[in-house]
């Protein structure tokens, strides 16, 4: 099979790199849940799709632009996620990792089917003028929305990093994830930290979902693919390692594009999964060293 010409390859790689930024944002939510709460959030994909639907309806009924409305949707999802944490996860604290994981699994089934019942299986996409415009950067052309998504994602990842490393809450968060028992004796309200972490994770997923919904399309079942890719990125980057997640996400985007160029777009997800399995086999702790 002949390789396409330079422009195509360069364009694909550049697009992959930019898309990787958005993938990092999505994976970040999973990473902080896992790192701080040891919660394997199997409903992560559905939270992503919820964010997309929310933005879709805000656009169609209130005319709010998806990118401008991103913080709004993030805040809304964060607020909605809090009571769910209290209801579903908090009661299972201290009962091991399997129970909350399976609870989130059940939650993902419920969410997916509720969305199916409410919104039907029709494919939707968030319309924005910049969502379907190319951007020529010299010899390379990339979709404009990828570039926008990249900057938005990097900005948000940086925000989360700032919260975790500079604020008082961030200190409590780092203490809770290192040793919850010790943190509790020092007066940290571990349950509150977990609740807010969960909300932040959900918000990241939702905001990432808006970027996906604007660049591509979505249905109630779109979440599953992104769940696995997110896991791959989390493992590659190191659980709880914010900078690592960013690097791993971008790397994943690039490597997927390489796979797409050589084997075809259909193999994109497969390449991602194979990388994941390799990462798991070689270094379950992650490839990027250092913790956040």
């Amino acid at each position, binding site marked *: 099979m002949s390789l396409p010409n330079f422009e195509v390859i360069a364009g694909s790689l550049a697009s992959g790199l930019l898309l990787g930024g958005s993938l990092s944002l999505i994976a970040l939510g999973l990473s902080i849940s896992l790192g701080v709460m040891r919660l394997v959030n199997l409903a992560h994909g559905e939270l992503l799709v919820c964010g997309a639907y929310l933005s879709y309806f805000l656009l169609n009924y209130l005319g709010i632009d998806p990118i401008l409305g991103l913080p709004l949707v993030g805040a809304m999802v964060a607020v909605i996620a809090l009571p769910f944490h209290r209801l579903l996860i908090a009661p299972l604290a201290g009962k091991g990792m399997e129970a909350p994981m399976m609870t989130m699994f059940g939650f993902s089934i419920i969410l997916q089917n509720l969305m199916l019942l409410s919104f039907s299986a029709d494919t939707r996409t968030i319309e924005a003028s910049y969502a379907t415009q190319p951007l020529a950067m010299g010899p390379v052309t990339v979709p404009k929305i990828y570039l926008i998504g990249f900057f938005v994602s990097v900005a948000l990842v940086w925000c989360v990093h700032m919260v975790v490393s500079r604020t008082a809450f961030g200190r409590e968060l780092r203490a809770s994830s290192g040793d919850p028992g010790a943190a509790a004796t020092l007066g940290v309200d571990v349950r509150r930290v977990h609740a807010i972490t969960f909300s932040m994770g959900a918000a990241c997923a939702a905001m990432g979902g808006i970027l996906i919904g604007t660049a591509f399309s979505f249905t109630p079942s779109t979440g599953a693919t992104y769940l696995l890719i997110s896991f791959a990125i989390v493992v590659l980057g190191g659980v709880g390692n914010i900078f690592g997640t960013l690097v791993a996400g971008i790397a994943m985007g690039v490597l997927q594009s390489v796979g797409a160029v050589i084997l075809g777009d259909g193999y994109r997800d*497969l390449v991602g999964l194979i990388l994941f399995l390799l990462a798991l086999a070689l270094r379950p702790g992650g490839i990027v060293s250092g913790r956040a």
Partner: protein
Amino acid sequence: MLHAAYEPTNDPEVIDMIQKNVSRILVPSLLMALAIASQGFSDYALEIGFRLLVMITLAEAWNLLAGYGGLVSLGTASFVGIGAYALTGLVNKAHCPLYLAIPAAGLAASLLALLVSRAVFRLRGLYFTVGTLALAEALRMFMVNYDGFGGASGLFLAEDPPSLYVLFCIALVLMAFTTLVMSIATASRFSILLRSVRDDEDAAAQIGVRAFRIKLIAFVVASFLMGMAGALQGLKVGTVEPYGMFGIQWTVSVLSIVIIGGQGLRWGPIVGALFVIALGELLADYPALHLAITGLILIVVIRFAPKGLVGLASAMSAKKQGAVT
């Protein structure tokens, strides 16, 4: 005196009595009665019965892995799919008779388990779970893209499958075999070793348990059963393709059944399967609602009845008898 023994004990006398009464006399005779009586069953009953038996087989196998072994695998679909495709290939290309083809398909699934075991058992806990999910999805994507096995269109069974009654009986035999295997596995020393690995692998290794070998045996046995169940399903439908046979719906159903029924308990899979399939039939016209309710029940069970319906029932029955638990 037989006590409320739904978990095996070390007492050889009790084990002996249980095995003698239940496994050797009661269950086989009931199954025989069922096989004979089912000749008079309506097609609908045979249809539902078949589905039930296949799900029970899958659930028992998964229970062995996850409930007794602590290996929460989300890769059930891979073994079902391999079994289905292997059977189709054997029947189409080698004209293999069914009594050979079905076990051979099971062996094909075990082969996959063997191949990935070395890599997959290096992972612990959540990494194992997510790793099996990734493997299952990767396999599905590969089958979709690779044309050698029919790609997205899949394969068609060249011969006509046997009648519904015969399929039901084959399923009955498979379930009986599974029950026998599970009885042996759970009432013997193997189950003690397995549970010790589940509860604390490092401690078990320290006292001389060969953890890898134990896990491997459980994995190979479970995948063998799952492969045969998949083969039977492929035989019945007559056409196999990646989305139907390697799809995640298999993993989801089996997991829900075992958790709702009660994982790590002998009767969990059967009760769970009866419950979930009955619910499915009741809500046959509202599939999205059915799945949403299943998810809800899953969450409620995990929260309030972690030992599932069987655990709940036995706790209530013990309370009624005034037994001290």
